[in-house]
């Protein structure tokens, strides 16, 4: 069936299914916390059921299959025939990812791809409680991932996975397929790590069978990854593989990158990692030694695949935001709001008529008074209209928050941390664009909090804290902006360590570092190239860095503040304006040109005798309440032909902040505070550093809106 993304019916389906999917994301995570909530189980069941119905109507068989199986599983769950376990969720959550991915494909106008067979197989097993029984006996139901692998890996995971890497190690393994000992497994591990070890391995193969089966999860992961990697790579790019293998030391980063690539490519090439695993699964089944033996490899193959899947899922979440931004083009608006707007538009028309009549003349003095009234009226109507229209663009922050339970769940399960996520103010409304723009930075900050903030349960216990860490996400409206808080009760940050780090990295000299206040030291984490963790972990080594987070937030005219207490926790507060379309500014004049400075970055204004400045280190500074602030002449930067001019002896200084730094800008005139409507810059000017946009002033002229951080980056060669 050809898909036309513009098809109304398809759109209708996507809107509904999109909402259900979002709900499912939350509900499934909630479910793990309250596994016996019958209403919740019913709701999840209905969610899959409804998507299935719509997908069936449109003939989207790939989605129908996934939903249908999930529905079956949840039907058993709601009937109490099976129970919600962490294992079950480990299967169901990736299924949801698949569904999300299929949905994204649909949005992009592509036919959704069928889910990987192994996942469907897992679901089928879950959906048939009888069939699931033998599979589970091989694995302790409550066991952790590591334990599972310990149990399964030496005996069972082996044959299944070796198959997938057959290209690389076929020769070696083929003879011993039937019976592989732990020793061999170890040997194999070595063999894969470096070709030179192959010799050793094959030698050690025939030796004793006693077990030394302590294989850590990491090792196993690594092995798996390599197996997958090689299995995929050997065929098309043999030399490269050889290189990589010969290199012996593959850093985790490289490795991750490779993995991502593999998973990424897997989408477009036929023999994907999963397919290989699925094949080996069938092979394992075909071999049919004893019923139990066949069951075990099947489980193993399925389980063994999980770490890889989990990782790819994480990557997807990290990168997923962008695609969502591009595609979500509809907003749901309460009809009541539309009615209100229509009403106000009616009012607007009336005022226009009034003004038009007045403009036609009559007694001048009387007209002027009437005109004043009409304009006052206009003022009220446009104000209301502006608010109402803005409200139609408002969406609850829930859209961003909704993904966190899952992120936190997956991460804490992966890292074996215990974290309770508390969310407050999910209903807080903010502009649709902001909601979308905030998604990625927020995800990054939350991941950071989980990764760096909250300690391992044992560590917490030692520190006299409850084993379970708490992560608070809160949103609330404060006047004309939104305050977002990400707070953990973890280890907190040590400002001294941060300062030392900054010095070590050559970001500043020891003296400057020593002068930093604590909060200035905390903000260092936002600087590019700053990471206190010596080894980059899987989690925080990816995606946007902290510097990108800060840049994003300041692009939104927002600010970030960090408070942290060593041993107690860290609190990040993000402030963003309610909307991006209208911005309060301070209007200034440089020569005859008007400019607007975003009011959020303006701290204070004062008049200064410019002869009382000093030059320190070649930088013009001015003392304000005992503190030296760098001083810049905006005229020199912004007005053509004025870069070297001498300037007046006194002038207005606007103190603005960039991050935690304060700087003074000398301007020619101050006009005053004004709410401006931001117009994007044309193509020619788009992306010019230091300019955030343009606006039209009351007298019909154009004023450029300055972007303070950008300005400092491109002109302020020395910061503070």
């Amino acid at each position, binding site marked *: 069936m050809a898909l036309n993304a513009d098809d109304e019916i398809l759109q*209708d389906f996507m809107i*509904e299914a999109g909402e259900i999917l979002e709900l499912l994301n939350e509900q499934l995570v909630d479910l793990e916390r309250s596994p016996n909530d019958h209403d919740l189980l019913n709701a999840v069941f*209905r969610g899959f*059921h*409804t998507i299935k119905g719509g997908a069936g109507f449109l003939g989207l068989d790939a989605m129908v299959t996934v939903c249908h199986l999930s529905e*079956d599983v949840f039907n058993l769950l709601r009937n109490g025939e099976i129970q919600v376990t962490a294992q079950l969720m480990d299967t169901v959550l990736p299924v949801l990812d698949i569904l999300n991915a299929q949905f994204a494909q649909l949005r992009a106008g592509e036919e959704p791809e069928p889910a990987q067979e192994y996942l469907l197989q897992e679901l089928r097993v879950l959906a048939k409680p009888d069939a699931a029984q033998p599979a589970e006996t091989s694995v302790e139901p409550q066991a952790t991932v590591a334990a599972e692998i310990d149990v399964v890996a030496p005996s069972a995971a082996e044959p299944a996975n070796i198959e997938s890497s057959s290209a690389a190690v076929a020769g070696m393994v083929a003879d011993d397929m039937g019976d592989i000992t732990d020793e061999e497994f170890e040997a194999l591990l070595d063999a894969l790590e470096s070709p030179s070890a192959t010799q050793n391995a094959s030698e050690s193969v025939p030796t004793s069978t006693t077990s030394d089966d302590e294989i850590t999860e990491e090792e196993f992961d690594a092995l798996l990854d390599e197996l997958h990697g090689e299995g995929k790579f050997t065929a098309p790019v043999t030399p490269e593989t050889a290189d990589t293998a010969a290199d012996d030391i593959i850093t985790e980063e490289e490795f991750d990158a490779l993995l991502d690539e593999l998973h990424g490519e897997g989408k477009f090439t036929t023999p994907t990692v999963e397919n290989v695993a699925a094949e080996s699964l069938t092979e394992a089944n075909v071999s049919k030694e004893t019923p139990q033996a066949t069951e075990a490899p099947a489980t193993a193959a399925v389980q063994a695949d999980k770490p890889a899947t989990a990782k790819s899922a994480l990557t997807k979440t990290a990168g997923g935001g962008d695609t969502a931004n591009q595609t979500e083009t509809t907003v749901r608006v309460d009809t009541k709001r539309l009615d209100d707007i229509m009403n106000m538009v009616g009012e607007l028309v009336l005022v226009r008529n009034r003004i038009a009549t007045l403009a036609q003349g009559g007694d001048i003095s009387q007209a002027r008074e009437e005109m004043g009234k009409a304009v006052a009226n206009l003022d009220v109507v446009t104000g209301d209209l502006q608010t109402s229209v803005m409200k139609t663009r408002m969406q609850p922050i829930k859209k961003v928050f909704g993904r966190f339970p899952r992120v936190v769940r997956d991460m804490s399960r992966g890292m074996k941390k215990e974290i309770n996520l508390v969310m407050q103010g999910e209903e807080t409304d903010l502009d649709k664009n902001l909601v979308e723009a905030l998604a990625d930075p927020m995800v990054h900050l939350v991941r950071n909090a989980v990764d760096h903030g909250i300690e391992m349960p044992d560590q917490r216990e030692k520190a006299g804290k409850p084993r379970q860490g708490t992560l608070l996400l809160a949103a609330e409206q404060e006047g004309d902006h939104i305050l977002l808080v990400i707070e953990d009760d973890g280890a907190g940050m040590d400002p001294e360590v941060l300062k030392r780090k900054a010095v070590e990295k050559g970001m500043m000299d020891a003296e400057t570092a020593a002068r930093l206040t604590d909060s200035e030291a905390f903000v260092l984490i936002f600087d590019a190239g700053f990471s206190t963790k010596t080894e980059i972990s899987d989690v925080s080594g990816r995606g946007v860095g902290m510097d990108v987070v800060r840049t994003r937030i300041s692009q939104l005219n927002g600010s970030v503040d960090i408070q942290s207490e060593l041993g107690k926790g860290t609190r990040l507060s993000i402030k963003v304006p309610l909307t991006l379309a209208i911005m309060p500014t301070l209007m200034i004049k440089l020569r005859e040109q008007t400019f607007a400075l975003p009011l959020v970055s303006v701290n204070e204004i004062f008049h200064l005798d410019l002869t009382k400045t000093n030059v320190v280190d070649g930088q013009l500074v001015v003392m304000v309440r005992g503190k030296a602030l760098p001083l810049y002449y905006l005229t020199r930067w912004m007005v053509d032909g004025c870069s070297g001019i001498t300037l007046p002896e006194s002038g207005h200084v606007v103190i603005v902040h960039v991050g935690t730094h304060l700087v003074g800008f000398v301007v020619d005139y101050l006009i005053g505070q004004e709410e401006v409507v931001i117009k994007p810059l044309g193509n020619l000017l788009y992306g010019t550093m230091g300019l955030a946009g343009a606006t039209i002033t009351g007298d019909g002229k154009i004023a450029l809106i300055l972007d303070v951080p950008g300005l400092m980056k491109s002109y302020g060669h020395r910061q503070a």
Partner: protein
Amino acid sequence: MPVRVLIVDDSGFFRRRLTEMLSADPRLEVVGTANDGAQAVEQTARLRPDVVTMDIEMPVMDGITATRRIMATTPTPVLMFSSLTTDGAKATLDALDAGAVDYLPKKFEDISRDQNEARRQLCERVYVIGSSKHATPSSHATTTTRPAAPTPPPTTASRQSAASRPLATAATRPVMPTATPPARRGQYRLVAIGTSTGGPVALQQVLSKLPADFPLPLILIQHMPGTFTPAFAQRLNQQCAIEVREAKNGDELKPGLALLAPGGMQMVLEQRGGRTTVNITESDPALHYKPSVDVTFSSVARIFPAQTLAIVLTGMGADGREGARLLKQGGSSIWAQDEATSVVYGMPAAIVDAGLADAVLPLPNIGMAIAQKT
């Protein structure tokens, strides 16, 4: 006046699609929609639609409960939308028990591969059920005692038949059968019942009246998908004194055992070495009904041409007429359910109009009549 429809579904997507499809038929008018069962009950009472299309899985109140409530407060024909899965079978049968008249697959592809054909059939079903005066759930039929369906007004047919009871010939216009079946006790060797829309409830009513020691074997043909018939047979077995099960290939006819033709297949009788067994075969794709009453009745006509009591109960269409004609020619008796108690007076009407009916009976009387006359 168009048939007024209330659409109940928690999926807005589905509500809009159904509304589009049904509104395209000039005979139908969608008067309202409801998002859940509770709204459905309320809307039904307020709008008084001619027919309600009902989803099963809904928040607040599910479709089965809602159907039960509607039957208790403002009885209205309810058409269920269900999935044709084995799990769906249970829910659908529950819904029928609760008083729903009929069901349709939620996946329209299951109605017909051809989209336009599926739409046409969908509208047709809604129209027939909505316009049928008798589809109101007088035949709401858990085995509990309910006020017996109103005694049907004497039909023109039965009034005339009192005067003369001519023999049926293919040439004559509708034969006028009696309301009391002729007594031919001891003569029958098999009871064969065919039915469609409204059949699950009707069969239950009829079979639950038969005693455990019922002396004849029965075969039942109910138009139903293959995923439903096992659950349906099981349910009948629980509700009736006689044994009911889904027929398997090679099952032998036995007194007191009712074999239900499996959905999606055809069931024919075979006689070999004195044993009469059922033969379950793949359906010829050209056949519209799987199982088909005509196919089974025709095979019965070869084996028990004069010793069969064939009964056609409520249902849309005319399946069973040709099979009944063969049986009639062989000398068997044919009964039809009357119009007043039929959810859809289609299949029984076809029998009566073809002059094949020996008796036309209201549903509540059929079970007793079978028990007495055999």
